[in-house]
């Protein structure tokens, strides 16, 4: 069964481009250019994966996730952006997106990213990996929960390879582990990113914007 995809982006040209590129392998069930259009359409159409622009009028991608989550908890979100601001990227991941990729991604890679998100795994672009390494770098917080507030050595290794531009398959090859194990590590990092109470995480992301 092909994966059913919904596209939310305020750029008409971009939507039709993605439609053409992904249409061969995936089923595009619909698209929307605003938050107001997107929410009822997603609730109605029940896509498997929503490609979500981070920056949009009316609250952006986070508003869509927040509105849809309660009614359709099974729908998975993949954030797609040209944005470089850490605050937005970390923000949308913490709202519940399963991954973040930049719009310069190739059609083939985007296709496999959608597949991966659909399978329940996480998708990290080099930039997101860099953000996470940076955010989890710094000094340890006062009340540390090692389960959530620290990255393991292996997770750190995996993220460094992703930041260097390695695909999951190449990371697996370099570290002599299976692709599945790489996916497990990345998903664990995503969970930490979403649930960690590291107060710095938010503050760090906000500070980054000022740089």
């Amino acid at each position, binding site marked *: 069964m092909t994966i059913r995809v919904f596209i939310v982006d305020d750029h008409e040209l971009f939507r039709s481009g993605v439609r053409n590129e992904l249409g061969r392998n995936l089923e595009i069930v619909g698209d929307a250019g605003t938050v107001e259009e997107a929410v009822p359409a997603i609730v109605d159409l029940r896509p498997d994966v929503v490609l979500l622009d981070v920056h949009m009028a009316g609250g952006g991608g986070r508003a869509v996730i927040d509105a849809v989550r309660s009614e359709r908890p099974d729908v998975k979100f993949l954030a797609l952006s040209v944005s470089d601001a850490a605050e937005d990227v970390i923000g949308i991941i913490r709202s519940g997106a399963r991954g973040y990729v*930049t719009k*310069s991604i*190739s059609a083939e890679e985007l296709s496999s990213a959608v597949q991966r998100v659909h399978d329940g795994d996480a998708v990290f*672009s*080099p*930039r997101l*990996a*860099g953000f996470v*390494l*940076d955010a989890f*770098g710094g000094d340890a917080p006062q009340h540390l929960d090692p389960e959530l507030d620290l990255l393991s050595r292996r997770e750190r290794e995996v993220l*460094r390879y992703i*930041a*260097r*531009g*390695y695909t999951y398959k190449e990371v697996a090859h370099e570290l002599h582990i299976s692709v599945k194990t790489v996916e497990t590590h990345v998903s664990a990092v995503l969970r930490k990113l979403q649930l960690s109470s590291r107060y710095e995480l938010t503050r760090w992301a906000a500070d980054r914007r000022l*740089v």
Partner: protein
Amino acid sequence: MAQVDARHTAPRLERSRRDRWVAGVAGGIGHHIGVQASLVRVAFVVLSFAAGFGLVVYILTWLLAPLEAEVDGFEAPPRRIRLPSAGRAIGIGLVIAGVLALLWVAGLWFDGNFVWPILLAAIGFGVLWARGGDAGRGRWNLETLGTPLSFTRFAIGAVLILAGMGVFLAARTSLEGVGNVLLAMVVAIVGAALLAGPWVWGMGRQLVEERSSRVRTEERAEMAAHLHDSVLQTLALIQRAKEPREMASLARTQERELRAWLYGRAPELAGVRLRDAIDSMAGRIERQHQVSVEAVVVGDAEMDDRLRGLVNACAEAVANAAVHSGTTAISVYVEVEDDAVNAYVRDQGAGFDPDVVPADRRGIADSIVGRMERHGGSAAVISRPGAGTEVVLKLPRRDS
């Protein structure tokens, strides 16, 4: 009077810049032990009549004690202080002469056979070696030996030293032997000069030449690396460009950059933080080569010359990937660790065999490996045909 000031009782004895008549020795010792410099000077003068003991100590201290570090905003005015006014000089001379006469009359500590030769030789030594402060001292400066001033100096110094030697030797022999002694000395010195002179001269020239040629080689390597990064890359692009407008724009960009470099500015990389420098580098290469450069920086650092070297090497690696890999997506990852800054430039393009790069392809050798090594870092290129290329740059941090 002999007040001890905590700031002045430094453990290190340094010659004073501010409080000096000749070389700052008395001033330095005064500061060091916490007494007035004039007392030290009087002590030196008096001790000099103890068979020249004071003079020997003075000269040894001059040679061994370093000159005090320059104080911010304070320029040492050596001329003014070294050559006291005529009145002052006469005063000092009279005081010395008085003390001298007193001691002469008292017949104390005084041995003309020693003091005069040593005094003459010491003044000659001072005239010879007191050129241009610390930098010139202890090293014969052959480049300036031929100039009139230094030649006069050399002559005066040599005559004074010879006179000192002559007086010393003459005092040991009979008075009429003075002429013979002087003649013998002149003959010996001329002989020594004829024997060793050309050789010493040649050695000096060779040293000077070696030093300047090493400087030139380093400058040339740096310049070759820069020209390769900028001008040669742009020329390669212009050859590929199809549209006249594109060519013109490339040429203009290059002209601006080259001009800025020639006049000592690096506007593109002027950022004060490593992150800005990497981002601006990535942007520049994106514009130049119409590729997308995904630059990820973890951590950040203050830019310095070594980091600029790293950024430039990184830029060269990215430009290489843009031109040779055949892909349009290049990843740059830079991480600032406690003890090192590492940069990774990766493409998933054609790749190549690093062992068969032609010798005239200077990019990797000069701009990347050479540049990193000049800054104390290292570079490695990992590539296989068909499997993309990754350039790994490592720069240890010195300050941590």
